[in-house]
């Protein structure tokens, strides 16, 4: 039995957990290939025209898995806590996929909504696991192992590395530090982000991303916004900004966003206005399917040069 996991969106936050879980149930896990032109083109062709690039890309990754697996895992990510939900496009994702793509294998579209508490997660594990085994004990064991994998993965971030890019703490250093903010599926997809993080590192710049702050560090910043944002990843980004406003330690901010992203028009403008108030250099990089490598390099270089100059001036 083979289960496919599309390599984008919530993949970057949760895949070690699901991979372990399925494997412990004796199911083989196939991850779609790393993002490529082909995958992006497939997504562009099949997804609704107005969608943002990440959603189109998701369509491409699902197509990449067709004919390779018995099941594709497309959970309906609703929420992982009480205060917010995922972007509405995540909420409607299984419906979009079913209506837009043909020749799909079986889909596992379990609804993940942990608003009522962590116990809900058990139910999720059970409903996914019971597709493959009737043995409850095995499901519980697999669930436990999967949580441990996830913890390991997150630890990689907390220790100052970026596991999905294979970066360890020691790989990330430089004379200036940038907060690179955005959603995991933008930041950690080297194709989509045109290797933005590695480019910065090659300029001798150190980076911090929202995943590198602990949950409690972010939670502490919650009251800074009069009204909590509705979306999970967006709150992570906002709170990371507020963390650095409070504690310092960065020379500038780069906000990485997708062309026509719904939530980000609010997030981006809030960060822009607030960093201007505090006189912290701020740059928005908007990605779409046409963003060019050279243009990006030039903009990043100019920004970094400006920060270095600023530093010597002070």
């Amino acid at each position: 039995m083979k289960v496919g996991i599309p390599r984008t969106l919530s993949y970057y936050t949760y895949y070690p957990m699901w991979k372990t879980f399925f494997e412990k149930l004796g199911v083989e896990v196939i991850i779609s290939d790393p993002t490529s032109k082909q995958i992006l083109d497939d997504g562009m062709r099949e997804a609704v025209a107005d969608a943002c690039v990440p959603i189109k890309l998701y369509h491409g990754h699902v197509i990449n898995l067709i004919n390779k697996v018995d099941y594709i895992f497309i959970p309906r990510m609703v929420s992982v806590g009480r205060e917010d939900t995922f972007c509405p496009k995540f909420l409607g994702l299984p419906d979009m996929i079913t209506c837009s793509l043909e020749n799909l294998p079986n889909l596992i579209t379990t609804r993940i909504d942990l608003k009522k508490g962590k116990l809900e997660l058990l139910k999720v594990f059970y409903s996914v696991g019971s597709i493959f085994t009737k043995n409850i004990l095995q499901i519980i064991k697999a669930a436990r192992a999967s949580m441990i994998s996830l913890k390991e993965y997150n630890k990689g971030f907390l220790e100052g590395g970026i596991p999905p890019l294979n970066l360890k703490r020691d790989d990330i250093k430089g004379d200036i530090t940038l907060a690179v903010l955005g959603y995991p599926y933008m930041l950690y997809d080297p194709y989509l982000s045109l290797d933005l993080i590695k480019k910065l590192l090659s300029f001798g710049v150190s980076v911090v991303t929202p995943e590198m702050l602990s949950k409690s560090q972010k939670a502490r910043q919650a009251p800074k916004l009069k009204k909590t944002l509705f979306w999970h990843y967006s709150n992570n980004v906002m709170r990371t900004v507020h963390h650095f406003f409070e504690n310092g330690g960065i020379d500038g901010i780069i906000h990485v966003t997708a062309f026509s992203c719904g939530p980000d028009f609010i997030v981006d403008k809030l960060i822009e206005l607030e960093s201007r108030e505090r006189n912290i250099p701020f740059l928005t990089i908007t990605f779409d399917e046409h963003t060019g490598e050279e243009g990006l390099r030039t903009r990043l270089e100019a920004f970094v040069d400006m920060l270095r100059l600023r530093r010597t001036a002070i």
Partner: protein
Amino acid sequence: MKVTFPYMSNSHIAITNILEGLGNEVIPPPKPSKLTLSYGTKYAPEFACVPFKITLGTYIETLEMGADTIVSTGGVGPCRAGLYTTLQEKILRNIGYEFEMITFEPPSRYLKDIIRNFKKLVNKKVSLVEIIKLIWFAWEQLTLLDEVELESFKIRPCEVKRGETTRAYRKIVDIIAQAKNRDDLKEARKLADKIYSSVDRYEDVDPLKIALLGEIYVVMEPTANLEIEETLGELGAYVERTMFFTDYTINNAITDLFHLKGDRDAKKAAVPYFNEMCGGHGRESVGNTILYAEKGFDGVIQVAPFTCIPEIVAKSILPTVAEEYGIGFLSISIDEQTGKAGIQTRLEAFVDLLARKRKKKREEKIA
């Protein structure tokens, strides 16, 4: 204190009355124009949805006219509208305006805030009874406005002289807007009947039936959707929409207060295709497409702001649904560059297509 608020369709008439009745000086928002949108576009982020840009533009216009208090509504997501005012307030302050922003959140979560906010807007001695009367009257006024609008949809496709219904409708709206009490409203109702009955009509027309659905602001505000209803009516189609101001308010404020689920039928119908609440009206769009198909409508048109999240989800589902139910489907996405001429052409083509489809269906039936 000079109070203003966002513009949406005819609601400004009733809102102005309430605010004035509570003793406020009101700066009613002007009807959104090119200028409004250009202000909004200038100061809003590029990817903001059109309703955000229009309301922001309106605030700038009214602040320039001397308003110092903005009253608006919030919301609970998961879509963006509930966060509009948070960002709009920051943007306006950044431009340099000074004002107070009063945001009414839905009652179930923030009842205390509502009461506190409401008190700020009571600026003369009024008894509770008077307040209730005031709101009651506003409600009746809005209901009547919705009624006469609905009637205009029915008359327009039958009109002999193009544009006559629209002129009649505008006249009637003016009369209702002037009403000061319930007797005036009764009088207005009678006048409306008289005015409408003087519109020359063809008998025996069986117009194409088209439903308008999508995101609430662009569906309801004719300047935002570039008068789609009027255009369609003048192309000889009967247009229906599910959203009217009075039932929107009921669905959102009252059902929220009692934890009821509004628009249940549409949501239920949508379930096989669209199984999640995504904010906005995306799911209703899907459900209503099914309901209208079952009612024998010829087509549905989805209007949505460019980048509108729930409607993008709906849009990827709607073609499948429309095909399965054999109803025509057109999606129009609206941003500040959308021009009336472009829409007109697309609507004409759509109406043609539906007419041909209908003819074919009928021929098949006879054969």
